[in-house]
């Protein structure tokens, strides 16, 4: 294939509850170090949550942080880290040909809740409603904050795709590069969800909010005694470019994106449909021109809910029934559910496998749910599997949106 039609990842910027760069994140994934803690949530009190501790003011002034949102702050940190990591001379980059494409689960809940809370604290004086509310809550806001911060004049927008957002943002970046709309994409996903009580309250109402006296043990995907989702924030943004451009500047290449698929269940608001998930994975493998057994690692979406994990486990068993050499892991035991950031963050956690041949484990499985047994499932201990060429990353969301992304080890 022509190098102008091949898209590669040349920079990564991330913040997760257990790491503020790829090296730290990977080390903590291998060592089963959780980033989930307890946080005080308005009205509800102490809840399990995954919070990030990156320096908000590394790339942003205090005033603009105050004017923007937590999602914008996470996006600005990740975008700057990604650009720095890519080795690009940012001064020389044509900013009109840079695009920012960020997957989000939701946006605007935080500010809306805050404004209503303030109004209630002030005798319902509606004139106290902030003039910043609209620019903070428009859906493009986090991506727009990145353009303001980095002087990017190409396109920017977010992709509302529930918890498939991280994969969907990357896929959009790939498509915009292939269309020739941009020469460089800052693409990925972000989440500020723990800043809003409504998400906690809604998962609690569904009986799907994780709880445990030790918060580091609360997020237990595939464990028989799992009790729900640990809500987390985070972000992961990649620098994507055409292979021809990356080669020209001698860039370090993390991976090539060779396949992807997005589809819809069309069956339920919240309950996933395993058959559609299988179709999504197979569609991505087909697009990549691969055999099922070519996939070395599958990262499951595995959120820690009863039904979701059982359905996805069956889907992965069915999708990879013909492969004995595909290993399976998951990431939310370490970091909770980073919502719109989950897909892009979890992919980043597996990328170093191309170099070290190790599959990081899923953590917090004390007793594997028999309904979640999967061939070659890696949990609690890392596993050295030797050469890794292809990783498939699953990310699914409410309203039945499924996404699968396949990356390949880049070899000259």
């Amino acid at each position, binding site marked *: 294939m022509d190098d102008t039609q091949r898209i590669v990842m040349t920079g990564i910027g991330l913040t997760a509850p257990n790491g503020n760069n790829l090296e730290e994140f990977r080390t903590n994934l291998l060592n089963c170090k959780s980033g989930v803690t307890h946080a005080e949530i308005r009205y509800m009190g102490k809840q399990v949550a995954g919070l990030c501790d990156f320096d908000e003011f590394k790339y942003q002034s*205090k*005033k603009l942080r105050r*004017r923007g949102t937590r999602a914008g702050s996470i996006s600005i940190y990740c975008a700057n880290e990604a650009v720095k990591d890519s080795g690009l001379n940012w001064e020389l980059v044509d900013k009109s040909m840079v695009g920012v494409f960020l997957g989000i689960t939701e946006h605007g809940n935080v500010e809306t809740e805050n404004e209503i809370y*303030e109004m209630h604290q*002030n005798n319902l*004086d509606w*004139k*106290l409603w902030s*003039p*910043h509310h609209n620019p903070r809550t428009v859906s493009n806001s986090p991506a727009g904050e990145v353009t303001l911060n980095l002087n990017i004049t190409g396109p920017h927008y977010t992709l509302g795709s529930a918890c498939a957002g991280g994969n969907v943002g990357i896929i959009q970046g790939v498509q915009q590069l292939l269309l020739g709309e941009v020469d460089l994409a800052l693409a990925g996903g972000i989440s500020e969800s723990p800043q809003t009580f409504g998400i906690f309250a809604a998962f609690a109402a569904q009986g799907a909010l994780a709880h445990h006296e030790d918060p580091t043990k609360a997020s237990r995907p595939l464990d028989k005694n799992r009790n729900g989702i640990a809500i987390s924030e985070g972000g992961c943004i990649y620098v994507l470019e055409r292979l021809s451009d990356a080669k020209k500047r001698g860039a370090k290449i993390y991976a090539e994106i060779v396949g992807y698929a997005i589809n819809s269940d069309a069956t339920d608001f919240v309950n996933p449909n395993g058959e559609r998930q299988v179709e999504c994975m197979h569609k991505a493998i087909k697009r990549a021109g691969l055999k099922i057994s070519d996939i070395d690692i599958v990262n499951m979406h595995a959120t820690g809910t009863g039904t979701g994990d059982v359905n996805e486990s069956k889907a992965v068993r069915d999708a990879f029934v013909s492969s004995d050499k595909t290993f399976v892991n998951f990431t939310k035991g370490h970091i909770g559910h980073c919502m719109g950031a989950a897909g892009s963050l979890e992919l980043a956690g597996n990328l170093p496998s191309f170099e070290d041949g190790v599959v990081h484990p899923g953590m917090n499985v004390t007793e594997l749910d028999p309904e979640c047994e999967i061939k070659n499932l890696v949990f609690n201990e890392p596993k050295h599997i030797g050469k890794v060429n292809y990783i498939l990353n699953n990310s699914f969301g409410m309203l039945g949106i499924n996404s699968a992304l396949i990356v390949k080890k880049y070899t000259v």
Partner: protein
Amino acid sequence: MTAANVRQIVIDIISDIAPDEDVTGLDDSKSLREQLDLDSMDFLDIVMELRKRHKVEVPQEDYPKLATLESCVAYLSPKFA
């Protein structure tokens, strides 16, 4: 409330909405926007904070009266009386 108190109220609000700015040594007779990196949204924030913290209302037609620290004190002092 003294003029100095009113001045301090305005300074405190500016310090919160523009935390990167150095508010020491401001010239009270000069425009705040000439001395600090403030834009129209910041002035809306000043109005909002006066209302929230001190129940002082500033109608839109009076916004120009917040241009300098001197004019702020002159305009706001009767409202704090």
